[in-house]
């Protein structure tokens, strides 16, 4: 995603990224990042938390207006409502990131990508 942000910026379209993976985005380097410290999957706010989602979206728009230089990161002032336990469990031995079925899907998609690439379709 960061690569697309950079491509659009280099071609004159301002972007703002709303993301959960701060280190990944900052390692790549983008113009504007609104960092939301939630589990991977809900960058724009907790499910059904409408007021929070609206505030996060407004923060992203404000960042578009106010950033004056690249690598501008703003952190949204919210904590995950169920606590921080997810932070120590993600990618841990006791909690695998992908279950067997999801791993299988991922390997299938990877193989399909290779096939389609060989056929010149992607």
């Amino acid at each position, binding site marked *: 995603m960061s690569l*697309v942000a950079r491509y659009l910026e280099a071609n004159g379209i301002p972007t703002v990224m*709303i993301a*959960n993976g701060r*280190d990944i985005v900052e390692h790549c380097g983008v113009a504007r990042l609104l960092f939301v410290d939630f589990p991977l999957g809900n960058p*724009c706010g907790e499910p059904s938390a409408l007021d929070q989602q609206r505030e996060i979206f407004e923060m992203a728009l404000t960042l578009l207006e106010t950033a004056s230089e690249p690598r501008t990161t703003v952190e949204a002032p919210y904590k995950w409502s169920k606590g921080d336990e997810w932070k120590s469990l993600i990618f841990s031995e006791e909690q695998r990131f992908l279950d067997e079925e999801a791993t299988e899907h991922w390997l299938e998609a990877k193989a399909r990508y290779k096939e*389609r690439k060989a056929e010149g379709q*992607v």
Partner: protein
Amino acid sequence: MSYVRYIDKTRAYYLKEGYDKPYDWAHFDDVPFAPLTKPLSECRATIVSTSDIAIREDESADHTQEMFVGNAYVIPSDTPVERLYSQQEHFDKHATHLDDVDSFFPITRLREAAAAGRIGSIAKRLHGVHTSYSKRHTLEIDGPLVLERCREDGVDVAILTPI
């Protein structure tokens, strides 16, 4: 608690899983920056997302094929949010879910901003990009595709939401 260092965490995790070559996360020293040149209330906005966002019962697209491995694709911005969904599996499914599309693809928030005059308008197309198996594919195919479509639609600003 400080934020999660995914680069370090995934490196250690996949080493233990038996992958000996760590993933090479994209990194650049310089960062392009396009300044906003007019008020947001006059800007046309779009969303670009890697959430595998898809349309239910969309007979014009073969999502079983396109969903995970195709090139950048579009979602018409007038699609009712009830028809949008994601089958993305690469998120923290132990901690949360993707049942609320607006929690990762803020189409309703975008409509509210347009209705309130906070942004000028919504582009006719929103964009999906697959988390590609190739950085080169993203840079040489997906990036140019999204840019071309944004230019055709008169897009002034883009809101990007990775999962």
